[in-house]
């Protein structure tokens, strides 16, 4: 599903250039649940941003579902993001003047799906995350865990090939974190490919594979025995 070869990325900081990713080789198959770990500054967010087409790579190649991702203009990138990717952010990034349902329906709007169908689909995904009764509530009427579940429903609504989660539990307490992870595991069980960035080992242990990043290189890439989050819930 994801194929990365010899990926380099550096940022220019005035006259200095900061080499963040120094040759990443990495591939993800369909149905995997991968945790990308590393301390801050290890390059894990940069990697995720490149995977999410929010940032461009300097060197190397990136194929997503057989499509080479290179030199995209903003419009093309937006269309690919909409078609291939679902995003979950640490700070949820829900649109605060839209109800839960409208938030979930937003990627469908950009897919030019009709209003009726949008709402039906949005309700379906909200039901999947257990928030159907909260469909008409605004984000500020929801708890942190609920917000993240709405965000996950939104990421899923476009039926993406890959779900990218940037510290999805970073702003949540451990109980809610496990609830969210339980949801992510269930979505993965349905066959969806998920990549998540985290620095919490217990969250990483709930994935099927852990990729460890340090100073811009992968120092460890191992399959792990998945810890089910449902036992903590």
């Amino acid at each position, binding site marked *: 599903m994801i194929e990365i070869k010899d990926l380099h990325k550096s940022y220019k900081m005035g006259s200095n250039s900061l080499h963040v990713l120094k040759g990443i080789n990495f591939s993800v198959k369909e149905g995997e649940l991968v945790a990308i770990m590393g301390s801050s500054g290890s390059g894990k967010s940069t990697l995720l*941003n490149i995977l*999410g087409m*929010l*940032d461009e790579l300097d060197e190397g190649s990136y194929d997503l579902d057989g499509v080479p991702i290179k030199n995209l203009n*903003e*419009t093309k990138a*937006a*269309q690919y*993001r*909409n*078609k291939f990717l679902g*995003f979950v*952010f640490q*700070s949820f*990034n*829900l*649109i*605060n*003047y*839209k109800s839960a349902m*409208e938030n979930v329906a*937003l*990627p469908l*709007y*950009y*897919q*030019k799906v*009709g*209003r009726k169908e949008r709402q039906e689909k949005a309700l379906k995904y909200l039901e999947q995350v257990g928030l159907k009764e909260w469909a008409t509530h605004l984000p500020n009427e929801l708890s942190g865990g609920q917000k993240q579940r709405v965000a996950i429903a*939104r990421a899923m609504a*476009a039926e993406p090939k890959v779900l990218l989660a940037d510290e999805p539990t970073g702003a949540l307490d451990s109980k809610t974190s496990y609830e969210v992870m339980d949801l992510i595991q269930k979505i993965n069980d349905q066959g969806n490919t998920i990549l998540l960035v985290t620095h919490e080992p217990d969250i990483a242990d709930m994935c099927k594979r852990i990729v460890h990043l340090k100073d811009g290189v992968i120092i460890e890439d191992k399959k792990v025995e998945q810890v089910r989050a449902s036992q903590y819930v």
Partner: protein
Amino acid sequence: MKFLFDSNTWQEIFGSISKNKTRTIITVIGVLWGIFIYVALSGAAKGLDNGFDKAFKTVAMNSMFVWAQNTSMPYDGFKTGRPMQLKLGDVETLENRIPEIQYIAPRITQGQFGSKPVYTVRGQKSGSYTLNGDYPIYTKISTKKIFDGGRFINQEDMDQARKVIVIGERVQQELYKKGEDPVGSYVRVGNVYFQVIGVHKLAQGVSFDSDSAMFIPFSTYRKLYNSGDNVGYLCIAAYDDADVVQVEKDIKAILKSTHRVNPKDERAFGSFNLGERFGEIMGFADGLTFMSLVVGIATILAGVIGIGNILLISVKERTKELGVRRALGATPSEVRNQIILESVFLTLIAGVVGIILGAGLLSGLNAFTKDADFPYANPTVPIPYVLGALAIMVILGTLIGLIPAQRAVSIKPIDALREE
């Protein structure tokens, strides 16, 4: 352009606008105020314009009066200070020689310009009033409203030199009891009895004659007072497209030559050019209309710039939202269109509400000034002007929306999302 007709686009914009109420209201007020001022001002100016029109309705706009005075220069063997006298023959000469003259009504009068008013009696009541000897054509220059049942002097009255009289409203009030019909009754003017054929109503606005003026046929007057061909003064109306100032000059030049007066003598004949005065007043009204247009447009401009300003701030405020939208697959052009359409939509709402409020104010003003003694009537703004203003606003709204829209697109989604 397809997105313009997509109901989804509008739902999205309507959602964004209706859910940020404070922002929307503040944004809208600027333009709303602008178009309100524009409509109110230009409507008021138009009302004044109409008011002047109404005030001058009863008189021919291009009219003037010419009368005789004394010469101030010796000429052709005549000494200075020779008194001039207009004659009926002058009327014919002028009519024949100046094609711009539409109507010319000679008139002879008593009770005006220092002469003694005429003692008039009916039964036990009496009063002194102005008496005019007139031609029927006079009403073409200064319309006379005659109360029901009466009429003005006609050609037969002239031909037969009938002793008929049209009296003024005040004359009626002073000589008749309330509810008494004066038409058909007799009044004694000087020593002669006249039959009343009509009562003229005092015209609203500008009028040459007071409500105490009485009119008799010119032919009757000259017989009665033995005035021969003498004329008191000439009432002249030029055609609408004629240059009244030039016509006035021509008339005087001809009069001077027929009366053997030095062409440079400015004192021999006096005149009052109503057309010229009227032009000045209309010029003032036009100036007012133009000024209100300028002020209104400037206010609208300020309002639209205000919308752009607030949208620019709101784009900064919404950086994250726009970042999220783009992460979810909004293309830059979709984001840009959304911001521009928000701008246009707000401008349009503001415009329509402003127009409605402005029209409300104008209709209020109209009701308030309806019976007031003030040159003000039917304040309106022509529909093309309103539509024009609306079009200008939409165009400006689009242009000004481009600035925040470009700003919104120029922020990379990754930077937008990173901003906490």
